[in-house]
């Protein structure tokens, strides 16, 4: 969502649109949403058992907001899913950023840990789920581990890529201006220069983590948005399935928005360089 906004901003920079055109462009997103809902409405008239109307879904959301299901209301389930992602993300950053930096900075580390990492990396995070369940069962820990594994990869990859791609000129400048030791260069040149790329990894890790937590919850859980969807399927409660989906979309968009805001705070200079 935020990405789309960005593109619109940039397009506006290039072309000078007239006021009428601008107003039309501002209304268009809402028009398209209204049309989608209308089509949904009409389609649900044919078979509301497998495609409940928007009203039914809204009613289901309303009910779940006040009546707990499996011990939690709707926000409770969303909160649990988010908490799992945040815990996993915390450990993924704690381990992944230093690990990526070491792989990028130190040849020996790159040849050893980096090689092993390159071997494991192509395995999609979802493929880890069965093995993790075999090893750790179906409690809280295996879910955290699954999301952690998924979030770790983009963090490590971006951290070491950032350091590998660092223009050597910055190191020359650092040394020319009295940053003489490796530690000083790392703190004052390498890290700040890499921050935007590292943070892009964090952003990816957040969105991948949000996907994997839902997959993990759909396999085995008693709480979380993934569980809601699964419960909806098992009890043929289609409005519940769609409730879960709507919330997953909303929370995912909010997460993207939040990471974008944090990035702007953290790297205010970055807006002028990359327009991703």
């Amino acid at each position: 969502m935020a990405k789309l906004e960005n593109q619109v901003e940039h397009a506006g920079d290039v072309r000078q649109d007239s006021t009428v055109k601008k107003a039309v462009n501002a209304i268009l997103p809402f028009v398209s949403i209204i049309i989608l809902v209308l089509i949904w409405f009409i389609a649900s008239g044919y078979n509301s058992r497998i495609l409940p109307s928007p009203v039914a879904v809204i009613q289901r959301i309303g009910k779940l907001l006040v009546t707990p299901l499996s011990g939690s209301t709707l926000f409770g389930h969303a909160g649990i899913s988010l908490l799992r992602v945040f815990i996993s993300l915390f450990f993924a950053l704690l381990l992944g950023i230093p690990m990526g930096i070491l792989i990028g900075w130190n040849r020996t580390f790159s040849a050893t840990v980096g090689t092993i990492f390159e071997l494991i990396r192509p395995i999609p995070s979802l493929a880890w789920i069965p093995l993790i369940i075999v090893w750790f069962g179906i409690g809280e820990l295996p879910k955290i581990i699954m999301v952690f594994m998924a979030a770790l990869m983009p963090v490590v990859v971006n951290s070491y890529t950032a350091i590998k791609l660092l223009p050597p000129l910055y190191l020359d400048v650092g040394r020319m201006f009295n940053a003489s030791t490796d530690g000083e260069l790392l703190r004052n040149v390498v890290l700040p220069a890499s921050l935007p790329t590292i943070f892009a990894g964090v952003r990816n890790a957040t969105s991948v983590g949000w996907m994997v937590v839902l997959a993990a919850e759909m396999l085995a859980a008693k709480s979380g948005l993934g569980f809601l969807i699964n419960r909806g399927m098992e009890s043929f409660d289609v409005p519940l399935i769609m409730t879960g989906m709507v919330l997953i979309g909303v929370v995912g968009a909010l997460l993207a928005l939040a990471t974008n805001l944090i990035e702007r705070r953290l790297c205010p200079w970055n807006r002028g360089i990359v327009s991703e």
Partner: protein
Amino acid sequence: MEQGNRVRVSINNLSKTFYSNAGEAINVVNGISFDVYNNEFLVILGPGRCGKTILLNMITGLQKPDSGEVSIDGRVVTGVAPEMGMVFQKLGLMPWLTIMENVEFGPKMRGVSKKERREKAAHFLDLVGLTGFENHYPYQLSGGMKQRVGIARAYANDAQILVMDEPFGQLDAQTRYNMQMEIVSIAEKERRTIIFVTNNIEEAIKVGDRIILFTKCPAQVKEIYPILMPKPRDEISREFLNIRSEISDNTDLAL
């Protein structure tokens, strides 16, 4: 010359050879020697890609020579000497730092107190005409303004010897012309020893107290021209044009 010709930097028989992937030796700098006098504005004039940047990297200590040595005040230096400052051809401003933070980077790394380094940075930002832009980021500045920041940064680091590697090479003609006038006036106000590299004859004659003309690759000293005209120099005066044709007749390539 008024400085009494005290030798500040002595470059002695520097050479550097690189090896291509095919194992072929490329001799980039071949036994270069020259002296730089205290507080002079020395210009190194040579064609593009003739090893000037490598030579400068060896003078500043960023790269090790294969043979030969650089001495400052008679003392042989290895590595980056604290007396040295550099204005980079490709600017090398830190995009994550504000203009103020860029200029005070050198003193900060040396552990100078915040108040002191801010004052110093403000002084040199004023000298290059960038007061009011302290809190901007480099991406918000034009090419000419960025290179001014590079110059202020080198001065603020208390460098007694300033190496400038084609500092105006990436500027448009008009900005370049203005910056040439400006660097002359800055150099008059704050006396330092300057080694200024360019591939532009007019620029060399406009700013230099002395011009060292290089051959094409591998770089060697071809001729040294003292320029005694008072500054600022008139580009269409007879004297200027005479020196200009004398130098251009002596160059290997169209510079």
